[in-house]
């Protein structure tokens, strides 16, 4: 009687996965002309660059208003996106929607919106709406809408169906069931997620201005055009401060909520 043989299939699967990953990496490197030389020299240049970013604090005063605007853009995008996402969440969840066609249309629309990053929305909307905070708010609204609707529908589909059955049995309408049985079960999680999305949006809104979306990113364009690296240094530090501050506040509220 010998030792049992090690499962062959598992081993083959592992090796196959490793092989596929390595192949992907190799192809990618070749196709993009990625050279390790650039990696090392690039990194050296990178750090050298950082020294040029020594902050020139004279630029600080002119950055206040754009900073406030940046936070406002993030806030408004989050608020409008969440409000618009609200009905879509229930249309995209199988336990609260009307029928299968509505479900699939909503989900497809959301998948489409979710594949486009917020900067791209801003770039496309900038020529349409006037360059400034408007395309920024619109872009973040669309982005927020897409991810909150997705997360929301996942949360709603995972709730306890019992209370829904009970309320339907008592003669409640679809909307009443949503308000009294669905929302109480998901409210805390969703609020926490909205705050998390706000954090993400604050980060995004700092650079939306690069493509015309308003906020502090617009200054960045100016600074780049004039090679004013000292001002960029200040901008980076200020951005850091704002993002970390918002993160802390948001985390505080989120932990108190859940």
């Amino acid at each position: 009687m010998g030792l049992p043989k090690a499962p062959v299939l598992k081993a083959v699967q592992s090796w196959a996965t490793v092989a596929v990953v390595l192949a992907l990496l190799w192809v990618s490197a070749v196709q993009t002309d990625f050279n390790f030389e650039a990696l090392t020299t690039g990194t050296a240049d990178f750090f050298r660059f950082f020294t040029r970013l020594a902050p020139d604090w004279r630029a600080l005063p002119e950055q206040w208003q754009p900073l406030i605007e940046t936070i406002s853009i993030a806030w408004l995008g989050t608020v409008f996106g969440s409000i618009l996402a609200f009905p879509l969440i229930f249309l995209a969840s199988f336990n609260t929607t009307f029928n299968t066609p509505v479900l699939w249309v909503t989900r497809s629309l959301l998948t489409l919106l979710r594949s486009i990053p917020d900067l791209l929305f801003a770039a496309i909307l900038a020529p349409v709406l006037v360059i400034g905070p408007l395309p920024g708010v619109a872009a973040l609204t669309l982005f927020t809408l897409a991810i909150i609707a997705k997360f929301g529908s996942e949360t709603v589909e995972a709730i306890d169906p019992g209370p829904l059955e009970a309320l339907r049995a008592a003669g409640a309408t679809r909307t009443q069931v949503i308000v009294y049985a669905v929302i109480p079960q998901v409210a805390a999680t969703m609020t926490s997620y909205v705050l998390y999305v706000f954090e993400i949006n604050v980060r995004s809104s700092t650079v939306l201005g690069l493509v015309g979306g308003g906020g502090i990113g617009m200054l960045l364009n100016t600074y780049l055009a004039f090679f004013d690296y000292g001002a960029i240094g200040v901008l980076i530090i200020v951005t850091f401060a704002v993002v970390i501050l918002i993160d802390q506040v948001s985390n505080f509220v989120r932990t108190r909520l859940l």
Partner: protein
Amino acid sequence: MIKFQDVEVTYKTGLKALKGVSLEIPRGQFVVIVGLSGAGKSTLIRTVNNLVPPSAGEVIVGDRSVTRARAAELRRIRSDIGMIFQTFNLVKRSTVLRNVLAGRLSDANPLASLAGVFSRSDIALAHDCLARVGIPEKAYVRADALSGGQQQRVGIARALAQRPEVMLADEPVASLDPPTSHSVMQDLKRVSREDGITTLVNLHFIDMAREYADRIVGMRDGLIVFDGTPEEASDEAFENIYGRSIDIEKDLRGAA
């Protein structure tokens, strides 16, 4: 009051849960349905408010056909039928009062109810129902902070808030310990008697069935195999319903 006319239910999986059930229940009667799991008790009860639509036959409550009712009409019929569940089905994070008020939703002003606003009379009724099941002080407590027996009482209060003519109870005490089960059953029987509500209860426990029922209906394999008074429900009759010896059941269950 409740008429089942040749009701058949076949699920999408092909399972024939009800194979032709006909039954007439007069107003105010307290009926207990017994049988093994899978005998069709839950399905039968759910055809009364159309949570499970029959594949054939009809269920008539009062003078209205439940089976043939369309959306708005169905909601109106459902508002007169209260239901309590084995798992209570309360909204855990909401307060007890909110849960009971949910029973008033079908009658409440649609817009106001979406904003969480109920009329004073509705709120008073909700408090009354809580008092009738013995837990008026729990009105503002979160539902999941209550014990099992208390949660089921909230379920009863919610059903009562509908001012129902019919009450359906699907294994209402299966999740509760024996003393609590009895006190909940007593409450159910009492409010049913006080308001003259026609009540259908699914139960596992033989002694409980005998103790509380006006009439016992036994089911096996989707058909009614017994229909009579508790006195007529001898051990032999139960063995026929369960299709096996019931000595084990008597040992473990029904102890008050």
